[in-house]
């Protein structure tokens, strides 16, 4: 027998503070609380640390402790290692997990420091001087044919590929309707509109409620092709082909049938209650030339008016793959690092497959430059961008812009409990249960997400100003403004940064 494992969390209710209002009972979707006569009964085993009860308790009566009773400590046989074995010994199955990589890899971002001006050049004050963060995503010509007409007017003879103009280099990444709720989608779409940026639909199609925001939407074409038809493609401001995802490189996706309600069935164009399975590869893309064909096909279908992005997971060979993508008509490559979040992924993939976004962006930017094709492709970094510092560092390493996913969810209340795949999100985000979805108020949540984007944009402007840079393109790939702190020589070479003090 294996028996009960030590509970992960212990919830306690302070009887002195508790006024038995029952808000915790109402709010907990996992059944931790119940009424037991005139007191609250707690079943800590059901707790996911989603903090909904704590956030709703008017008396601060609830406290939560992680690992109240632990195993004998052992550096190799960690709690996680042991519990995975108990779990699999019982079930014989693949372990599913939510959110991003949970292993204790060092975050490279935290070992890079940014630069600021002192004396030899003046830092700029964004309150007094313009600092430009407007970014254009898409192919750009390597050179221009500009002729001077008689009379001095300049004539542009080069035809430019349409670019996506974003007012800030922060976009909201692809999280599908299905994985998250319609209210979550609505909130983010409104925030994108308010802040002059874009959001991805994910592979869930575009719900009719989002049509008013279609000019801010990047529609996704993934291996399941759910929700894809010409109407969908034409509504988006850009199209993204999803090859892979940082949380689970090399595998597809699976939306369980129980989540496929009437609305989702309509949006994804699949029968109600049926599992939505996205295969690991696109079955019409078995090579780089097949990808180029699909890019061309999508461009053709939309009359070459829309930028097409290709999203790949950051894997070992990411730079060469990006160079291949640059040779197609694609406009941008999205690189999703191994810290990228997910509603559900096999834990072994989430924690062990792929490489960090910092190294991936640096090597992609370098490879494209070495081949003289950097203007052919914009680079969008995603996967684990936690704040404006990560954003600035990603751009200095070579990214044009970033996608945020988890950060946008957190702005709506998500506590990163990692139980998205259970569909019971008490915050109304990763759930389709109408009563839970109703908890997320799009008026409020859209404001929170917009605030987050604005705040990061302000901080980015300050960082640029301090570095004496008044336009974001002068930070892009500017590794000279980064220094590695406690990074090894090999990694610094990949990142093309010098160490602190050098």
């Amino acid at each position, binding site marked *: 027998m294996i028996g009960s494992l030590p509970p992960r969390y212990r919830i306690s209710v302070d009887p002195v503070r508790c006024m038995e209002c029952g808000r915790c009972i109402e709010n907990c979707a996992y059944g931790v609380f119940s009424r037991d006569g005139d007191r609250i009964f707690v079943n800590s085993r059901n707790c996911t640390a989603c903090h909904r009860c704590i956030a709703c308790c008017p008396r601060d009566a609830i406290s939560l402790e992680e690992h109240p009773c632990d195993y004998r400590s052992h550096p190799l046989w960690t709690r996680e290692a042991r519990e995975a074995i108990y779990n699999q010994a019982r079930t014989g199955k693949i372990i599913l997990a939510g959110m991003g990589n949970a292993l204790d890899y060092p975050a490279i971002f935290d070992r890079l420091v940014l630069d600021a001006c002192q004396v030899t050049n003046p830092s700029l004050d964004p309150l007094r001087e313009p600092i430009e963060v407007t970014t254009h995503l898409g192919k750009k010509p390597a050179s221009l044919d500009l002729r001077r007409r008689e009379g001095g007017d300049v004539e*542009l003879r*080069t035809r430019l590929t349409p670019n996506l103009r974003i007012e800030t280099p922060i976009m909201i990444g692809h999280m599908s309707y299905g994985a998250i709720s319609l209210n979550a989608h609505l909130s983010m779409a409104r925030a994108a509109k308010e802040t002059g940026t874009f959001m991805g639909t994910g592979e869930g199609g575009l719900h009719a409620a989002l049509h008013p925001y279609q000019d801010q939407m990047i529609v996704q074409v993934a291996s399941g092709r759910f929700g894809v038809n010409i109407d969908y493609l034409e509504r988006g401001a850009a199209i993204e082909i999803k090859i892979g995802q940082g949380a689970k490189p090399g595998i597809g996706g699976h939306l369980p049938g129980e989540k496929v309600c009437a609305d989702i069935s309509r949006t994804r164009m699949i029968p109600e209650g049926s599992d939505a399975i996205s295969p690991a590869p696109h079955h019409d893309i078995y090579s780089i030339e097949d990808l180029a064909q699909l890019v061309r096909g999508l461009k053709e279908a939309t009359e070459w008016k829309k930028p097409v992005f290709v999203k790949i997971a950051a894997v070992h060979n990411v730079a060469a793959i990006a160079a291949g993508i640059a040779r197609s008509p694609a406009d941008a490559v999205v690189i999703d690092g191994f810290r990228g979040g997910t509603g559900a992924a096999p834990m072994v993939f989430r924690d062990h497959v792929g490489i960090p976004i910092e190294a991936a962006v640096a090597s992609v930017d370098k490879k494209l430059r070495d081949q003289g094709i*950097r203007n052919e492709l914009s680079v969008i970094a995603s996967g684990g961008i936690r704040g404006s510092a990560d954003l600035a560092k990603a751009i200095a390493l070579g990214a044009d812009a970033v996608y945020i996913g988890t950060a946008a969810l957190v702005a709506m209340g998500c506590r990163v409990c990692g139980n998205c795949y259970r569909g019971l999100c008490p915050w109304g985000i990763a759930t389709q249960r109408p009563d839970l979805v109703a908890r997320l108020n799009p008026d409020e949540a859209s404001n929170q997400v917009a605030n987050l984007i604005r705040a990061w944009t302000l901080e980015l402007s300050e960082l640029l100003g301090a570095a004496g840079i008044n336009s974001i393109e002068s930070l892009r790939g500017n590794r000279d403004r980064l220094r590695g702190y406690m990074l090894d020589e090999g990694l610094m070479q990949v990142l093309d940064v010098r160490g602190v003090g050098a």
Partner: protein
Amino acid sequence: MEGNFLPIVFILSGITPIRAFPDCLEAEGGGSTVMTMCGIIGVMDKSRRTMDGSGIRQALSMMNERGSGEGAGYAAYGIYPDYRDCYALHVFFDDVHENKPLLDSALAQWGTIEHDEAIPTCDRPGLRAVHTPWRYFFKPDPSLAAPEDEIVSALVMQVNAARRGALIFSSGKDLGVFKAGGWPEDVADFYRIEDYEGYIWLAHNRYPTNTPGWWGGAHPFNLLDWSVVHNGEITSYGTNRRYIESFGYTCTMFTDTEVIAYLIDLMVRRHGLDIDLAVRALAPPFWEEIGRMPAAEREWNSALRLAYASAMMNGPFAIVAANRDMMIGFTDRGKLRPMVVGECDDRLYISSEEAAIRAMEPRVESIRMPAAGEPVIGRVIA
């Protein structure tokens, strides 16, 4: 037409002026309040009447407060009429006996050395000669398939990247750069620049923070026909360098200014842009301003920003650059470094300080301070 970025094209230029100087320009963003680091000056005679180096020496020494005695240099156009068809390669040898044979054989592979000699110098007490300056008059082999300029620029990149004790710091026709570590007067006297007659002169008084003492780090920087002097610090250097290196240039001078020479070479020679458009790409209008332009103008200005985003230079700078036909001056789009322009008869002056211009030409008229990012372009006639 009050935009900040319309280039001023001098009436003394051969082409129709897009905009002449207004009678007066406000001193906004002018020279007095910005911090001091490096003094620059350029002078051009539009009718190619030559001046010897004594005037510019005098002018540059007026800005000694902007220097630290660790670097100065001069570039002069029209000084080698006897070899006007040859590329004049100025070289620093660490050790002539050891390094010269290597360079000789490299040059012989690529073409013919018409003549070579030590650049005449005169020992100065205040200047320690750490290199031996040499000059070659070189003709690329016409049987090589590539254009002459391509051959010479590739040669310069290769020799300088190899770091075998030879650094080619000047490679144009009928022009030469003279630079060293020291005060402007010492450097001028060391090279006896009063013995040279040029119709365009650029000069630079250096306050180095990056590579003090190293002669290669002194200005002007030159590649083929273009020479550059620069006061400032390019905060976008990391971006600019990686961009320019993706076109086959190699940055070897350990200082930010060399990328300017290469960027101008890329845009003007290789991409065929007019110089005012190249300058506009380096210090472009803000998006907000582009948004207010009429449609056609907006379109090409946007295109310029998109295509040359990584060429755009950030940080405080004032730059004077020249080739055989023109001299240009421009600042960063916030004008964080001073730039003053003066005219006198056929001569155009661009400098960090009015005093420097006046030292060279007491009769100077119409001293002006162009607005931020507004280029000043003077062309020689014929």
